[in-house]
């Protein structure tokens, strides 16, 4: 059992949880993830390690499916049955020169820990974070304290640049030499944004989030195509060279259980949801 130390609503449907998991916290590095299972009947889901403080780790998620909605009901003092990690390979942090760390939507969760390590390695770190609108933008203050420069974009122009992170990235690539980028967000955003760096020949990492079960290389559920080879995102990744990734296949495989996910959520709302609503029908 792993104690939930603190919870917070960061934006609409976006939650942050600090959970006590010393074996994860003491060994976690930027780019790695953990797997949680809330209770005995729970699913194992991977979540990026967003920050570490002593023996606690931070996870940030959007409550969209059954497991994330249930996770959103937890309060400080509650417990998560299983927390496994840290899993996957750490980010390839080196002294590259100028690095751009880009986060889109809830993918911003992964950026502070990478930006911080990149900064500590002696890089000049530029952050670009974007969301649909100002209310959905998370971790702005944190990224501002870490990065040398921070750019903000919103799809509707309610904050920062009106447009996408890819637009700002392109402008910066035109303006100055960039040595390395990390792009983290929804698969489609990573696909589009990494195409921006391609013509400039800039080393670009993306963090892939396919469906996983064990997260230790045992099942092959998370297989992705990188450079024409089959890789397991859980052990060979989750970060890969963006320009080698088959994003269309990733998106196709992310949708495998769409129907089941809906069924699971409906079942949850009918039976044991503690999130209010029509629970007394």
């Amino acid at each position, binding site marked *: 059992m792993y104690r939930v130390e603190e919870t917070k609503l960061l934006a609409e449907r976006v939650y942050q949880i600090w959970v006590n998991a010393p*074996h*994860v916290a003491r*060994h976690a590095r930027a780019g*790695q993830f953990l797997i949680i*299972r809330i209770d005995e*009947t*729970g*699913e*194992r889901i991977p979540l990026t390690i967003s920050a570490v403080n002593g023996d606690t780790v931070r996870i940030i998620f959007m409550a969209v499916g*059954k*497991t994330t909605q249930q996770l959103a009901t937890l309060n400080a003092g509650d417990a998560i*049955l*299983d*927390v*496994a*990690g*840290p*899993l996957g390979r750490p980010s390839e942090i080196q002294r590259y020169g100028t690095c751009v760390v880009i986060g889109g939507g809830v993918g911003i969760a992964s950026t502070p820990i990478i930006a911080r390590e990149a900064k500590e390695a002696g890089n000049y770190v530029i952050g670009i974070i974007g969301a649909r609108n100002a209310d959905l933008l998370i971790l702005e203050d944190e990224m501002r304290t870490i990065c040398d420069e921070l750019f903000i974009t919103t799809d509707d122009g309610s904050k920062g640049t009106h447009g996408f992170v890819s637009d700002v990235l392109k402008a910066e690539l035109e303006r100055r030499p960039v040595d390395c980028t990390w792009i983290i967000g929804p698969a489609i955003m990573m696909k589009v944004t990494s195409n921006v760096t391609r013509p400039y020949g800039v080393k670009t990492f993306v963090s892939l989030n396919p469906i996983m*079960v*064990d997260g*230790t*290389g*045992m*099942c*092959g*559920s998370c*297989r992705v*195509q990188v450079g024409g080879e*089959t890789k397991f995102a859980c*052990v060979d990744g989750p970060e890969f060279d963006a320009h080698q990734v088959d994003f269309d*296949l990733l998106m*196709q*495989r992310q*949708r*495998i*259980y769409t129907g*089941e*996910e809906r*069924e*699971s959520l409906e*079942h949850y709302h009918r039976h044991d949801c503690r999130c209010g609503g029509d629970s007394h029908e």
Partner: protein
Amino acid sequence: MSDRPADERVRDFREVDTGLTPDEAMEEAGRCLQCKKPGCVRGCPVGIDIPAFISEIAAGSFDRAAAIIRKDNILPAVCGRVCPQEVQCEGECILKGKEIPINIGGLERFAADWERIHAPALPETGKPTGKKVAVVGSGPAGLTAAFELKKRGHDVTMYESLHKAGGVLMYGIPSFRLPKEVVQAEIDQLRSMGVKIKLNHLAGNSVTVDELKKFDAVFIGTGAGLPFFMGIPGEQLAGVYSANEFLTRVNLMRADRFPETDTPVKRGSRVVVIGGGNVAMDAARVARRLGARVSLVYRRREEDFPARKAEVAHAKEEGIEFVLCANPVRILGEQCVTGVECIRMQMCDPDQSGRPEPVPVEESTFLIDADMCIEAIGQGPNPLLIRKLPGVEYGRKGNIIVADDGRSSLPGFYAGGDVATGAATVILAMGSAKNAAHAIDRFLRD
């Protein structure tokens, strides 16, 4: 025979073989000729004194029978169920050929079940030595090593990456062949002996190699958990599973109860399973229980199946169709599987394994309609920890190279089970783990 009828058992996950009653066990034990030079003991990888325990069963002293088995085998309830007895003890039984060999597996299971239910005995642990040993992996090899080391008074900490201990006994072998409470009882016993079990700990990550080095010795029993894929077109389609994934979803995550449980699994109506080993049989029979019509495609002949004979027979009874001397070349479909294209194979001169080598017959492809495909063509050692161990020698297939006593090239690090031998059986993993545990004990006492 103590098997439940096939048409009944394909509708649930309860055990197929209901086991012997005390009367049946005593009668079966009474058939044993008590050979002076017993072949069965020679055939047993851990050398259980088989005639002795059988004679106790015949006399009705079931707890004494269990105690005799326990001396050499810490997982008798497991081995009685999953060992390939026909090529081990029962294969060497003098009655084989004349009449039916003694049902040694059934008797072993009977004694072990009797003990668990009626007279659970806690094995004695030796005087504490003050030496600390880490056991990595909690499958058959890790459980055996932990037991042997704890029994000799060492302080044992076991690391398991999943949320349940038991390794392949939990995630791999289905409950209709090995009920999970049988495995859990063994793990509970280890715990009550004082073995510390750290779940959710991936060795190499949650506990680093440097932290492992602080132990006086380390036993690595991480098994062969890395699934192989055929590398044919169409493997990325929805509905293509490794047997590991399919079995883990059902056995460990209980996807058969979805949406009562949260982990889904596809329920094919027409499933093709590729392979001929125990894992392939397990996957086929699980798919059958989830309601599918199942074809098992194997590139050799039925007599070449590496699977345990009883499981081949069970699969057949349960309506699994065997498509023999055939090999898949392509999985068809747009986003989901719609079929598996196979090619006929002919048996030519024996290959390295001594079996006839299957060679494709030109222009003999044919199509099997399917909405799901499960590949059960084998597993290799998971390289995760091995690659992080400085100076550890490993073979071409990724297995840790060990000396006869289980010692690896990294001082203080020993290995046993599938990670050292390559994918094999539960009992062979236990045999090699026991051997390594004894070597660790000698090493710690020097």
